[in-house]
């Protein structure tokens, strides 16, 4: 268990990259980019976790209770916003590409090369 979260983070990164390079559909490709991003969630989350401590919400518990690291959680919140916005942008690019090229298969888009 001590190193499982890190292994999962690495696995998600690699498998997401595989999805991107082998994709035949841009929407699938964009979603795979999201999987790569989720690798960073898992990494940050496991770095911020402290064994035996509680969530950093002091509404119902004494203010001096030991809690997990709130900094990385704040970083992850930013990360999630970045994810949703980047994916929204990429999806709109995919829609336009489909409109102009008539396909979403990256193998068939070869407009810019050389």
């Amino acid at each position: 268990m001590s190193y499982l979260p890190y292994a999962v983070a690495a696995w998600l990164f690699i498998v997401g990259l595989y999805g991107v390079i082998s994709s035949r559909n841009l929407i699938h490709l964009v979603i795979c980019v999201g999987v790569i991003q989720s690798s960073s969630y898992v990494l940050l989350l496991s770095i911020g976790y402290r064994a035996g401590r509680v969530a950093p919400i002091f509404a119902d518990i004494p203010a001096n209770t030991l809690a997990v690291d709130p900094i990385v959680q704040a970083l992850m919140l930013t990360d999630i916003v970045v994810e949703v916005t980047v994916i929204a942008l990429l999806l709109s690019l995919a829609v336009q590409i489909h409109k102009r090229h008539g396909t979403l298969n990256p193998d068939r888009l070869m407009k810019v090369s050389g």
Partner: protein
Amino acid sequence: MTRRVRKIFFLLSAAALVWVFFLAYSPLAPFGYVQSKYGDMVNAITVPERHITDAVTAVNFDVRGFDTLGEEFILFTSVMGVLLLMRRQKDEPAGDHEDKAADRMIPPASDAVRVTSLLLIAPTVLFGLYIVTHGQVTPGGGFQGGVILSTAPLLLYLCADYRPFRRAVPQRLIEASEAFGAAAYILIGGACVALGGLFLQNSLPLGQSGSLTSGGMVPFINLGVGLEVSGGLSLALLVYLEELLEEKEQ
């Protein structure tokens, strides 16, 4: 590269990258035992110094509030980007939604769906507002609540037809309120300067810990963020919906 070559090339590189990840992650402290004085320090000061019971909110909107300003503008910029990329081109027909919408290909929703979504709108809005306003007390805040609020226009679409829906949704107003929400963050930061502090330095009374008015400027920032996120995301969803329903019939 052909597909096959690309896959082989990638798999070889990825094998090396796995080893790189192993080298990087193996010296980490075991899961649950990483140390950070920074995090402990922030946990220790949020309630006594800021009267905020949710430490993550304290980090997001106060201690590292400037990051969140950047983050809000990432969202704002991306929504503008989506509007720019999805804009109607000269060679596409402009406007004239109503006639196109009449013979749209999506079958109309059943009455059951309509009633359900109508019933859902009010609770969704209320829940969203609750989450926005309680950010400094419990989990949640402007972002989470804003996302929930942004789904309300879509529920409205499900319960009405497209035409009344377009009429009911004031897109111009949503755009303006989104921009206002984003600008509010800067205005609040600037107000702190006007009151004699540094940018985003809290100078409002901190209030009673655990109450809605605790945290000084944080609830105000949360409201602005809620406005921005709900406006921005619903704009993006609206643009996608419009693109779906108003495509030129050939």
